[in-house]
């Protein structure tokens, strides 16, 4: 079997893997990127709409354009890239290095790396994960698959479409299907607030008069061969269904946009997983519970916008480069805890010192005119910023001066 040696192996060639690989290379490390698909870019390849890059490149692009920027940069740095190469196993060896097994049409290979960056992205939740019952006809498809069918394979997947869940991918697909001539009957969201970004509600639904039904969901799939309809019902505040409000809506296709889950399965038995994100527990260096194993992008936690993925992955790539040069300082780590209204935060551990720590988090409910704080255990505020509104749909960030981190800290949303 072929053996390849490198300092850093990046698993995944999407926005995250490319950004991390570029950053690690710029920081002096020898890097290899592997991706199982035929082309680089990950999920961006199928996101042919625009709105990418405003934050990082200060320029509006489509998904493939955004990816292309990274691909051009990676190529200009001559980063070796192995395509159609799937990682099947990652093992930490006695000497601290990693043995990574890959399979490709060229055969099996073993890659030995001092550090590994996980950048495998995420997958979509399925009908079973929302306990969607009924029959099992053809025509129930996840929003991301529908996006791939239409944008990559050029195949249309339905005529009269109901969308379950108001995740961003579903909203984008509502508009896409409309463009392709489908009748998008409506988007049904179990929560009282949408789970996608407001800009997508406006630009993808409102602009095309596609109705959004909040606190209403699909409770049953109908149809024998092809989907023939759905049963929808209003949802009570305790999330039980108000069965009196049941009605049948005829349709031939059901798109599921009910959330994304990090694809950590490759390593989930070997590292500590955050139950709330399904991604790895990491410290402020994006290092997982296994030393030398780093994680960033959607495999760490689901991001709303790709610019944040790039910025996070640049940090992670740099840390991995420092690690392989034995220059990654690892002082005493303090816990980063979740306080009022904060559902999860990344990273879970951080140390004091120089520079800034960027904590990313999501809230569990809506709040207007509030403050985001980071406090030490004794109540000392070490970071505080006002927020007009916080929403579960939107990833929030708070920047903390590291010199102030002298103990465990808690991130909260507060009134004042």
């Amino acid at each position: 079997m072929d053996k390849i040696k490198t300092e850093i192996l990046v698993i995944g060639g999407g926005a995250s893997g490319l950004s991390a690989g570029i950053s690690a290379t710029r920081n002096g490390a020898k890097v290899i990127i592997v991706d199982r698909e035929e082309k680089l870019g990950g999920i961006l390849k199928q996101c042919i709409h625009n709105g990418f890059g405003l934050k990082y490149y200060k320029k509006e692009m489509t998904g493939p354009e955004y990816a292309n920027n990274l691909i051009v940069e990676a190529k200009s740095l001559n980063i070796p890239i192995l395509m159609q190469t799937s990682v099947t196993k990652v093992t930490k060896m006695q000497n601290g290095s990693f043995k990574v097994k890959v399979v490709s049409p060229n055969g099996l290979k073993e890659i030995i790396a001092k550090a590994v960056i996980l950048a495998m992205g995420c997958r979509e939740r399925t009908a079973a994960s929302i306990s969607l019952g009924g029959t099992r006809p053809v025509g129930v498809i996840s929003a991301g698959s529908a996006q791939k069918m239409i944008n990559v394979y050029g195949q249309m997947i339905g005529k009269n479409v109901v969308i379950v869940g108001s995740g961003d991918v579903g909203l984008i697909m509502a508009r896409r299907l409309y463009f392709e001539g489908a009748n998008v009957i409506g988007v049904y969201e179990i929560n009282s607030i949408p789970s996608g970004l407001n800009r997508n509600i406006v630009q993808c639904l409102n602009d095309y008069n596609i109705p959004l039904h909040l606190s209403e969901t699909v409770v049953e799939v109908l149809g024998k061969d092809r989907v023939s309809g759905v049963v929808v019902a209003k949802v009570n505040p305790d999330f039980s269904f108000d069965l009196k409000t049941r009605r049948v809506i005829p349709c031939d296709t059901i798109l599921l946009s009910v959330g994304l889950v990090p694809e950590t399965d490759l390593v989930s038995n070997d590292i500590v997983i955050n139950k709330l994100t399904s991604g790895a527990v990491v410290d402020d260096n994006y290092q997982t519970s296994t030393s030398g194993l780093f994680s960033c992008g959607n495999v760490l936690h689901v991001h709303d916008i790709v610019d944040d993925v790039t910025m996070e992955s640049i940090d992670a790539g740099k840390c991995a480069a420092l690690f392989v040069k034995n220059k990654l300082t690892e002082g005493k780590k303090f816990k980063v805890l979740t306080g009022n209204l904060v559902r999860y935060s990344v990273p879970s551990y951080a140390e004091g010192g120089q520079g800034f720590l960027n904590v990313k988090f999501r809230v569990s409910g809506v709040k207007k005119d509030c403050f985001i704080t980071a406090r030490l255990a004794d109540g000392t505020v070490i970071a505080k910023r006002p927020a007009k509104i916080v929403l579960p749909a939107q990833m929030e960030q708070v920047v903390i001066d590291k010199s102030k981190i002298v103990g465990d800290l808690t991130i909260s949303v507060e009134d004042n």
Partner: protein
Amino acid sequence: MEKVFDYEVGIIGAGIVGAFTFDTLVTNGVKTCLCEAGEDVSLGASKANSAIIHAGYDPIPGSNMARLNVKGNKMYEEVAERLGEKLLKCGSIVVADETGLDGIKELYERGLANGVSGLKILNKEELHALEPNLNDNLCYGLLAKTAKVVSPYNFTISLCEEAIINGGTLKLDYPVDKLEFKNGGWKVSSGKNSFTCHYLVNCAGAGCDKINELAGAEKLNLTYTLGEYILLDKSEHGLVNRPIFPMPTKLGKGILVAPTVAGNIICGPTAKLIDKYSTRVTSEGVIEIREKTKNLVNGIDFRKAIKLYAGVRVKEGKDFILGFSKLVPNFYITAGICSPGLASAPAIADEILQNLQKCGVKTHKIAIKRRKPYINTQNLTEEEFAALIAKNPKFGKLICRCEGITEGEIEQVLKGVITPLTVEGIKRRLRATMGRCQGSFCLPMIIDIMAKYYKIDPSQVIIRGKTSLVTSRVKEAGIYSQKEEEEPKTNG
């Protein structure tokens, strides 16, 4: 002069019973034709059940069920070996709380009466040592060492393939709609097509009443009991090591938690009498499964559910109905083959063979040509895998990431003995799209592979039945055509 028929025996219905019968007859030198309404084999009860080869302690002593279950159980291992099918020799346990010892003893006695070996009553310690995740309230267990777990649809497919390799004929897409007894044999028609056979066996599962009616045989009164399931991700592997049953009731064996051959966990089935055959999963059913399994196993994580499904038990009275019709000649009925039908199927087939022999059907054991099991790259050593990719690089191209299925594996199945014409046919043979993402990554790729292989448009790639996912466009790209519509069209 002896009358000439196309086949000596015709079988209607390619579920597990029809498949075992087909294989048994063919390998005993009987010219046999199996016909099936669906586009593939194993589309009825045999594709959605608990997949357990029961030990046989449950049926009433003296019943068909008791006799055939115990006998069938003993036959499975050899067949699995020959076909290259997976079989978990894990045993099973019926569990009971502190009030349930009498019930456990009763089952044990019934098992002995039925001739079941390998039964053992477990005390609390023994029980929890075998199954550490059981609910603490459970104090007694009946361990049945001979119980096994298989993949019922893979068994059905393999049996049919073996029969075909050895000279049997399979007719798919052949919904039988007319039966005539002529010249001492049966004419079996489906639309314009027909064949003749000397003897006919009804293995039509939920359709057995209709087949009896077409033949003019005994009237059957079928009842339907829905059984819903929740299937959990492979990440939950090891939650239980063998099927865990509650105490059986009049309604059935109860909602169980069991491993599958692929390493998933199933929870179910419910038992709800329905008036029409339908495999619809109800929200009440899902709730019932969640509630009831709590009493069996601790810490079942239903967030790891990857599929909800259901099967229908087709019953006629309390026992299997088996034997020649008393109203029409040369017509063998298998009806009401509910649980333990899977466990009993090889024994049912064996009895059919014996009964046909008694009628004078000539048989001789043939030297069975072995079926070549499909390559599963997951089961290969690294050397074998590398050699395979060197020969055909498509075996190195991963398509279904959750189950580790490559393009090479999909192509070999497309070239298989029974060519699957649907995505679901590929799924049942290989498990592609059956994993935790349920095909959200690989379905578009599989449709693409099939379109290229069959040289058809993706809109002609069938997912199941006659239905495709891809539809034609309603109109050309909307935004452009909308603009066009705004401009008034002048017609010349």
